[in-house]
């Protein structure tokens, strides 16, 4: 009863909430792992695809270089044919060119010829010259930079190209047979490779990086970035409908370099973790409902158990109450049996009187009967008296037996004056022996209350005995009955020394006693017995000395 969790409903609610939290946590963890794994798989797939495509570029370069280097002069027609075929099959290769690199003069001389075939692309490519680092204005179609000129030999498509002049020196500086990459803006980059040995030819491909990822391969759930030298070529944001991520979780990230023969591209994928993906609302709702039902069932079960427990407790309390009452009854009986010892000599005297009278009268009657002329009138008169006398003795015995009996208390409407008279009959001789006079002031008609006669006699006997002990020889004990309102009162008072003020509050406490050989149970037992029949008992010291005990009982209702 101390913890609030002993309330089954509250406990169930707490358990339900805990289950929800656990579900959310577990769901977030598994979802996050699943989403990260998915991203990883997607990333690897993309990486593999892009790597293959990038590798193809190198293959094309090699093919074209091989084709153009095989004969002198270069078989432009065949090269163009292959280039057109490549361009047709691979839309991501936006432009292919076979260029010739030459010294400054040659480049300038050829520049006019090339001009007709190439269109200004409008692209300004900044190139760093070795040493000075200063930008130079780019030429159109063919040009030179840093003392190297570049001339387009074949270009497909003829009008889709860029001005290679700014890059001429760089391409010329490339290691032969190894491709190099150059950014070309708008998600495109250039891939150039010089022909082996002494040839001044080079092949340049312009790759549209955005087409390295086919539309159907694009993962809608992730933000895809393909970058070259830290600059994004392709930047595909995730579908906006997935919502923003959850702040406190590190979103899954995939990053891998595509190293395809000089084309160092970086593929990175980022995935946001929207709450809805982590904790699907439908599943949460379903779980909440199921857990709620379980919690409700638990609460109901606990409630039932508590109810059973309560009823068991109530039953046990009732049993204990009964046991206490039985013990009290036992104690009351033991106390009466104990009191019988004190009363015994008085009662023996009480019985001796009728026995004496009986014996004497019987002997007298016998003598009369044995006379020559028996006086029958006298004899029958004597026997009549004897019968009365024997009954008197029998009543006394019954009174004793009842008082010492161990029968269960039996509450019934009783005449309180009669109860007082019974007690007086039991205790009279004892009081005479103590030299204590008894005064009765019984109200008429007699008040009636629902009590057990024997127990009430016991209460009065206790009070009378205490009073007699208090006064000692020469004392007077007064017993009176009366009515006040709806209550009956039995008052036992004496002219002894009264009750000390400090003793008064403890008077009815068990085991409290002022007597040297007392148990301290008499008055507490009195209180118990009186309270059992809804009465109460009070003690006071009256002005002028002497104690007064008042037993108050509810008057029996008029029948």
């Amino acid at each position, binding site marked *: 009863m101390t913890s609030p969790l002993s309330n089954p409903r509250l406990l169930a609610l707490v358990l339900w909430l805990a289950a929800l939290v656990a579900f959310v946590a577990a769901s977030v963890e598994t979802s996050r792992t699943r989403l990260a794994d998915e991203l990883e798989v997607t990333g690897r797939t993309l990486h593999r695809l892009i790597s293959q495509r990038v590798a193809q570029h190198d293959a094309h370069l090699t093919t074209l270089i091989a084709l153009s280097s095989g004969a002198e002069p270069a078989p432009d027609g065949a090269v163009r044919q292959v280039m057109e075929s490549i361009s047709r099959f691979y839309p991501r290769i936006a432009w292919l060119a076979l260029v010739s690199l030459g010294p400054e003069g040659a480049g300038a001389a050829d520049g006019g010829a090339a001009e007709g075939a190439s269109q200004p692309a409008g692209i300004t490519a900044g190139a760093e010259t070795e040493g000075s680092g200063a930008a130079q204005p780019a030429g159109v179609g063919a040009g030179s930079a840093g003392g190297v000129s570049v001339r387009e030999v074949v270009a497909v498509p003829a009008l889709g190209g860029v001005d290679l002049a700014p890059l001429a020196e760089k391409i010329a500086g490339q290691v032969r047979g190894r491709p190099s990459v150059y950014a070309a803006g708008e998600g495109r980059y250039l891939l150039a490779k010089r022909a082996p040995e002494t040839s001044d030819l080079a092949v340049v491909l312009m790759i549209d990086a955005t087409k390295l990822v086919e539309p159907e391969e694009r993962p809608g759930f992730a933000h895809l970035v393909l970058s070259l030298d830290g600059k994004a070529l392709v930047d595909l944001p995730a579908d906006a409908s997935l919502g923003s991520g959850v702040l406190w979780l590190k979103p899954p990230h995939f990053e891998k370099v595509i190293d395809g023969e000089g084309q160092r591209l970086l593929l990175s994928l980022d995935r946001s973790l929207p709450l809805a993906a982590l904790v699907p609302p439908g599943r949460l709702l379903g779980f909440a409902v199921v857990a709620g039902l379980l919690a409700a069932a638990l609460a109901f079960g606990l409630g039932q158990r508590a109810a059973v427990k309560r009823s068991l407790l109530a039953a046990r309390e009732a049993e204990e109450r009964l046991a206490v009452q039985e013990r009290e009854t036992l104690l009351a009986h033991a106390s009466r049996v104990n009191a019988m010892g004190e009363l015994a*000599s008085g009662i*023996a*005297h009480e019985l*001796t*009187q*009728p*026995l*004496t*009278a*009986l*014996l*004497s*009268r019987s*002997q*007298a009657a016998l*003598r*009369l009967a044995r006379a020559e002329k028996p006086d029958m009138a006298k004899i029958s008169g*004597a026997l009549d*008296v004897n019968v009365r*006398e024997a009954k*008197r003795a029998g009543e006394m015995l019954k009174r004793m037996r009842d008082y010492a009996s161990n029968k269960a208390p039996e509450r019934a409407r009783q005449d309180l004056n009669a109860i007082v008279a019974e007690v007086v009959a039991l205790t009279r001789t004892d009081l*005479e*022996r103590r030299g204590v006079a008894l005064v009765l002031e019984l109200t008429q008609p007699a008040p009636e209350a629902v009590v057990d006669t024997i127990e009430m006699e016991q209460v009065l006997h206790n009070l009378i005995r205490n009073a007699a002990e208090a006064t000692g020889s020469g004392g007077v004990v007064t017993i009176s009955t009366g009515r006040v309102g709806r209550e009956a009162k039995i008052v036992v008072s004496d002219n002894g020394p009264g009750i000390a003020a400090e003793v008064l509050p403890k008077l009815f406490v068990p085991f409290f006693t002022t007597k040297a050989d007392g148990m301290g149970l008499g008055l507490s037992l009195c209180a118990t017995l009186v309270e059992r029949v809804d009465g109460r008992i009070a003690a006071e010291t009256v002005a002028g000395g002497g104690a007064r005990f008042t037993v108050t009982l509810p008057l029996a209702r008029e029948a």
Partner: protein
Amino acid sequence: MHRVYLVDDDEAVREALAFLLSTYGITAETFGDPQTFLAHVDEKKPGVLVVDLRMPLVSGLQLYQKLGERGIDWPTIMITGHGDVAACRRAFKAGIQDFLTKPIDGEVLVDALQQGFASLDAGLEKREARTLLAKLTEREREVLDMVARGWASKEIAASLELSVRTIDAHRAKIAEKLGTSSVAEQVRLALAS
């Protein structure tokens, strides 16, 4: 006719004992409490007392002692419902005739009463003898004692160095004062005192 005075606070006991005694031809006068008896005792002729030991206010023993203070030493039989040894001892020390426990057997009571009557009678004789002997002079008492020893007048005269005539004159005086000329009667009175 001997008298019996019965003092007991229990009416039934009183009445039954008186009834029993009546069958023996003994009349008992009954009293419910010692005070009433004390109030009237002076008017009563000597008799045997049957007293309950335990009575409210004044006990049987106290009654006996009060009577003793007044010079009334009638035989007293104490009856009690308790075979209390201490009370019994006290009673006998005080000079009680007998001590009977209730319930009392009629024969036992009557026996005790007979003894009481005897001692009452003895008491009366003793008192009578003392009264008579008190009338005698010293010389007459001396002569009576010698007569009781069985001496003849001549022997008494020789012993007292008196004449036989003088002794005879004393003996005549003694017979006159004691109211009997029977030597045996005179001797009984002399011994009873």
